[in-house]
């Protein structure tokens, strides 16, 4: 690779470490190449960014965030947790499993890992601590499970991947689903092992009839929230709507549920939810805008080809190439959140993995699991840090259980996803025909 590109990467990483907002680190990297390259005008940077953010496909992201925000304000998190608790809560370490499953389902509704940590963590962590779970452990479990939001459809990360690479979004939604289910199983197993020595108190057992009635009552309460991801997926895979249109239907569906059925949303809180969701979206969209400015310059500088040539020079063995891609993705995931990571890595690495014979839908699952692992892997680990704020604990108390989840659950799933394509291609080929 040329020294100019290497210097550009160094600038990007240095500014990120220093704490320049990620969106503007992309501007700095683009500006560096424009200033030292042979470019007469800079307006093409704006048109490159604008042409992408004005895409109707991308409107799916603010719409899903808004639908998730309305459901969260409507009290869906508590209802989901109570439903899962009524089924598994009376078993030892059952609340841990309940938390994993609820966080995963909530992630599917909200589409955002940070929302899952905030909504589920604020209810589940105090409840787990009350039962005798270690606070650091409870925080770690919620944070690691929240990352499943990237993998369970409808996921904002997969919308972005499909949009950036021109791959079917419906297929990308399904690609990381089996890896996500594997993660749920592994997190639940490790939860049972890690909580063996904790002094956990469970509620008194009740008769079967009482339990069935409780589960039925809570399922009815949570059912409207649970139906939302099913409606979205039904509309998309039934060929009725596009993902963007399904997201708009989800918003319109969420309104009467939160206003009239759950009765926890007022007009004042609705106003707040809408503008706060807009703010969250705007932050992501500025990243998308500037990432596309950088992407345009990188394409003009033929960087994807340079990366391909460099990696092929190391080895042309597909296994070695995929290991290198995984290492690269993990590094990106450790320093960037998922949106920036996808925008930067997907167009750069797709030529490399295509050379190694990887299908773009399979790569969606590889990139999703890798970036998800990066979100909870120190040093940056943004979701883990956010979790410590919600769990009111320190990073030192969260690190040990997190390393267990990363190395003994996430890492094996990343490798399985990378080297067993059927894990990510079976469902998309079954449902979308691929």
């Amino acid at each position, binding site marked *: 690779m040329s020294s100019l590109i290497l210097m550009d990467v160094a600038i990007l990483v240095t500014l990120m470490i220093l704490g320049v907002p990620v969106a503007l680190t992309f501007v700095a990297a683009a500006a560096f190449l424009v200033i030292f390259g042979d470019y007469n005008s*800079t307006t093409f940077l704006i048109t490159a960014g604008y042409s992408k953010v004005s895409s109707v496909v991308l409107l799916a992201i603010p719409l899903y965030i*808004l639908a998730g925000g309305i459901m969260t304000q409507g009290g869906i998190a508590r209802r989901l947790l109570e439903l899962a608790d009524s089924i598994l809560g009376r078993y030892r370490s059952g609340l841990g499993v309940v938390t994993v499953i609820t966080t995963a389902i909530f992630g599917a509704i909200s589409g955002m890992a940070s929302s899952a940590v905030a909504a589920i963590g604020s209810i589940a962590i105090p409840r787990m601590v009350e039962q005798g779970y270690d606070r650091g452990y409870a925080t770690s479990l919620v944070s690691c499970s929240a990352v499943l939001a990237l993998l369970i459809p409808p996921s904002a990360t997969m919308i972005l991947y499909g949009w950036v690479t021109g791959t079917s979004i419906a297929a990308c939604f399904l690609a990381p689903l089996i890896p996500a289910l594997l993660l749920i199983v592994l997190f639940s197993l490790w939860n049972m092992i890690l909580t063996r020595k904790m002094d956990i108190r469970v509620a008194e057992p009740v008769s079967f009839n009482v339990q069935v009635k409780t589960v039925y009552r809570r399922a009815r309460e949570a059912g409207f929230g649970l139906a939302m991801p099913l409606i979205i997926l039904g509309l998309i895979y039934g060929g009725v709507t596009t993902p963007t249109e399904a997201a708009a239907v989800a918003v319109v569906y969420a309104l009467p549920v939160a206003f009239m059925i759950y009765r926890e949303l007022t007009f004042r809180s609705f106003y707040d939810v809408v503008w706060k969701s*807009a703010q969250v*979206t705007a*932050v992501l969209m*500025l990243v998308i805008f500037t990432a596309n*400015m950088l992407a345009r310059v990188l394409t003009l500088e033929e960087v994807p080809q340079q990366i391909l040539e460099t990696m092929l020079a190391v080895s042309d063995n597909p296994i070695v190439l995929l290991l290198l891609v995984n290492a690269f993705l993990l590094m990106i995931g450790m320093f960037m959140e998922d949106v920036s990571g996808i925008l930067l890595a997907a167009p750069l690495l797709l030529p490399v993995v295509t050379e190694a014979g990887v299908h773009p839908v399979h790569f969606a699952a590889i990139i999703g699991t890798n970036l998800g692992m990066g979100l909870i892997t120190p040093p940056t680990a943004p979701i883990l840090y956010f979790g410590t704020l919600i769990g009111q604990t320190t990073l030192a108390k969260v690190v040990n259980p997190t390393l267990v989840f990363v190395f003994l659950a996430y890492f094996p799933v990343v490798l399985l996803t990378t080297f067993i394509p059927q894990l990510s291609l079976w469902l998309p080929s079954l449902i979308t025909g691929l």
Partner: protein
Amino acid sequence: MLQERQIQIQHPLWQFKLKILRLVMFISSIVFTMAVFLQVVARYLFNYSLFGIEEFASFAGVIMYFIGAAYATHERSHISASLIDTIFGEGRITAGVHAFTRLLAFLLTLYILSSLFDLFIFTERMNTKSVELRLPMVWIYGTMLVGLGLTAFYFLLEFYDSLRATIWHVPAEETKQ
């Protein structure tokens, strides 16, 4: 000086500006949600496609993104991956680095602004219109200019706060609304 700044952020005009930003974010969000939903209803219930509605929705989206980005800068909620806070904790070094990064953020936003301004002037001269609805593109680029201009302004204020925190040990949180 701290008092002056606190008076400034409590000033009705300052609060009014923030209210306007929130209102624009709210209205644009509702507009594009309803536009996309109307398209679904029209297409699947009445078998009729509304011409230009997707372009209209995406314009509302762009307005929301850039005004929202300005508001997010005011709220200091842009995504960053700083290791400095983790390594050094709160103190002068962190505040100093923070001041430097905010100054850089301000200058980089000005860099985009200048390119956007060039495009705005060019579009105005050429009287460029949108593809479907034939709306003047200067409206959209104008909104982006306002959003990015406010973003630059809030980065400058944050730089000022961080600089004071570095030099006079004034906690930046005190001046944050």
